[in-house]
C-alpha cells in the first residue's frame, strides 16, 4: 500500500486528514514568513520573501495534486476527510474548533494592544499574522489530537 494507493475510502480519508494538517502547518509557516518579511530589511526580507514564494509553490505543486489524486481515487463521491465517521475526521473537527478559539482570542488580544501593534503595521501584515496564528493553532491541535499513543498494534 503506497502513499497514493490507500486500501479503502476510510484509509484515504485518514490520509487526507493528515495531509490537511501538514498543509495547514506549511501554510502557517508561509504566512509567518510574510510577516517576518514585512518587519525586516534587505537582505533578510528578500530571503524570507523567496522562502515564502518557494513554500507557496510547493503547496501548489506537491500538496494540491496529491490531495486531488487521493480524493478522487475511488470514483463516486469524492473522499471528504471532514465528513468521515473516523477518528482522524474527529481530530480534524476538534482542531477546527480549537483554531476558531485561538483566532478569536488573538483578535481580542490584538484589539487590546491596538496602540502597540495596530498603529505600527499595515492591514496586510496583520491579516498575514492572524492567518499564521489561525493555521498554526489548527495544525498544532490536529497533531496533538491525532498523535499516536501506542495503540497501534495490529495483531489477531
Amino acid at each position, binding site marked *: 500500500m503506497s502513499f497514493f494507493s490507500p*486500501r*479503502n*475510502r*476510510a*484509509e484515504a*480519508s*485518514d490520509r487526507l486528514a493528515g495531509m490537511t494538517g501538514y498543509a495547514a502547518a506549511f501554510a502557517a509557516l508561509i504566512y509567518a514568513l510574510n510577516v517576518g518579511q514585512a518587519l525586516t530589511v534587505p537582505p533578510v526580507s528578500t530571503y524570507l520573501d523567496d522562502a515564502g514564494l518557494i513554500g507557496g509553490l510547493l503547496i501548489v505543486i506537491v500538496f494540491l495534486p496529491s490531495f486531488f489524486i487521493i480524493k478522487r481515487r475511488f470514483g463516486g463521491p469524492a473522499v471528504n476527510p471532514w465528513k468521515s*465517521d*473516523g*477518528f*482522524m475526521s*474527529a481530530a480534524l473537527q476538534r482542531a477546527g474548533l480549537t483554531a476558531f478559539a485561538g483566532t478569536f482570542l488573538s483578535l481580542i488580544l490584538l484589539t487590546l494592544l491596538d496602540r502597540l501593534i495596530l498603529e505600527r503595521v499595515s492591514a496586510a501584515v496583520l491579516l498575514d499574522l492572524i492567518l499564521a496564528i489561525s493555521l498554526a493553532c489548527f495544525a498544532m491541535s490536529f497533531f496533538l489530537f491525532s498523535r499516536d*499513543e501506542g*495503540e*497501534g*498494534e*495490529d*495483531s*489477531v
Partner: protein
Amino acid sequence: MSAPLTNRLRVLRAESGMSQSDLAAAIEVSRKTISTIEVGRFVPSTVIALRLARFFKVTVEDVFALADD
C-alpha cells in the same frame, strides 16, 4: 458530564481471529479508528457502533457499556 465508555471490541475481535485491519476493512473504517476505539480513546458514532454490533452479530450493549453500569 458523560460517563466513560468501556467496550469489548478487542475481545470480540480476538474471538473472531481478526486483525484490526481486517475488522476495519469489514466495517469500512480505518485501522486507526478501530485501534483508538479499542483503547477507549475515541468514542465512535452511532453508525460505527451499529456496524460493529451487526458485524459481530451481537447487540450494541454487548460491545459498548457505560463504565458505571
